């Protein structure tokens, strides 16, 4: 696999991949995965760097409330609104990053008032409640994802290989079924992949999902919707 800078439709060279840094732990694996695919990522929360990028990745591990505070404090919400929703850059959100795209999350909600997310998808983040008491939280380990529809990030991946690594206690529930690309099963359906227009997001960690995960990341990095 060889990589390199992609060109924008106008012919000007884009400088690559921006991994959004909003103060959460461990972007190392995501960065390594992007480099492995042949690209040169920057880990940044700088508006110019993100504006220069051809592709944007929003990783995430940790608590929703803290993450949204950081995102707002650094103006990342506005930056992403401009670069992703207005300018249409291909965008991949991972794990907590995916959850931030929802309207609300009930994680650690104070006084029953849920935290507000970016609201890019008509969805809420709810605690996992598998219908089998033997199934423990968090949902942690390798699980299969069933495809609801095709998507460029799943190109060239056989259905029998759609196993990914999950670590989470909350999951997104989308009101619009059309937003969902794939579900996992864990005593309940778990929204695993969502997508609309130039935006895609995974609940699992592609950067921890070996060949299949790298293939997904590679597909994303070559996606020009």
């Amino acid at each position, binding site marked *: 696999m060889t990589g390199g800078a992609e060109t924008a439709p106008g012919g000007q060279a884009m400088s690559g991949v921006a991994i959004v840094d909003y103060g959460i*732990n*461990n972007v*190392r*694996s995501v960065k*390594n*995965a992007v*480099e*492995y695919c042949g690209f040169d990522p920057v880990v940044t929360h700088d508006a110019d760097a993100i504006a220069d990028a051809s592709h944007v990745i929003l990783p995430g591990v940790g608590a929703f409330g803290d993450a949204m505070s950081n995102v707002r404090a650094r103006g990342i919400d506005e930056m992403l609104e401009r670069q992703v929703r207005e300018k249409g850059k291909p965008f991949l959100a991972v794990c907590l990053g995916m959850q931030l795209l929802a309207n609300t999350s009930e994680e650690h909600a104070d006084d029953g008032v849920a935290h507000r997310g970016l609201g890019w998808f008509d969805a809420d983040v709810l605690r996992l409640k598998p219908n089998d008491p033997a*199934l*423990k939280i*968090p*949902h*942690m*380990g*390798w*699980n*299969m994802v069933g495809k609801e529809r095709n998507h460029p990030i799943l190109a060239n991946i*056989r259905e*029998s*290989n759609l*196993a990914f*690594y999950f*670590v989470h206690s909350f999951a997104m529930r989308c009101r619009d079924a059309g937003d969902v690309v794939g579900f996992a*099963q*864990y005593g309940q359906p778990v929204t695993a992949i969502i997508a609309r227009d130039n935006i895609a997001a995974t609940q699992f960690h592609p*950067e*921890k*999902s*070996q*060949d299949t*995960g*790298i293939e997904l990341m590679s597909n994303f990095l070559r996606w020009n919707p």
Partner: protein
Amino acid sequence: MLKKRLIPKFLLRDGRLVKYTRFFENERAAGNPVTTAKVYNDYGVDELIVLDIVPSAASRGRVVDIIERMSEEIFMPFTVGGGVKTLDDVNMLLRAGADKVSVNSEAVRRPEFLREAARTFGDQCMTVSIDYKRISPNHASVFIDGGREHVALDPIEWAQRCEDLHCGEVLLGSIDRDGTMSGYDLELIHKAASVLGVPLIVSGGCGSLQHAIDALEAGASAVAISSMFLFTDHSPIKLRSHLFSRGLDVRASFSSRN
């Protein structure tokens, strides 16, 4: 549903892989940890466990370097442990690239440490490693400090206590069976799996494909394997395709691509 996991276990000594029998006998060189990890990654194992068996301030730096280098080209979860005593230790390993940190002796000496670490970093980041010997046919007892110090604790009761202290996972290892390739301690595995709510990884004794099947059917969520992969032709590829074709709920093997 979550797949059962096949996990090679790495023992580090001075930055090199080693393997013993029953923790102390018959030391053999087992290779370079970074390149071996890459090989296993290409074989398609589910996770890696890396334990520093002679931990010190100096060896911590070496372990961090090894994990960082592994993280460059290997994209699956790592559990790293060995001499983890403080929150700083945990943090250092997580930042180096570990997804989970294993604690053993310190959890026994200071159980509160486990609770603190789980609260600070998340339950899912904390694996408790418990080594035991059968003192007599019906009596198993925990050993800490790399199997050197006997503690009057029943391994299953201790595992339950660790679950109460919010560990995410338990790694239960038989010292008697370690490196013998004579089979896992199925009786204990069955008992432990039936009382624990958190996932159980079992270690010590795997020498054949059937041993792995037996342990998973006895209730283990994952099998940790060392000797069989190092010294026999039963590779992780063979193991996975065998388990898959026998109907066990593991990730599909390569040939299922057809």
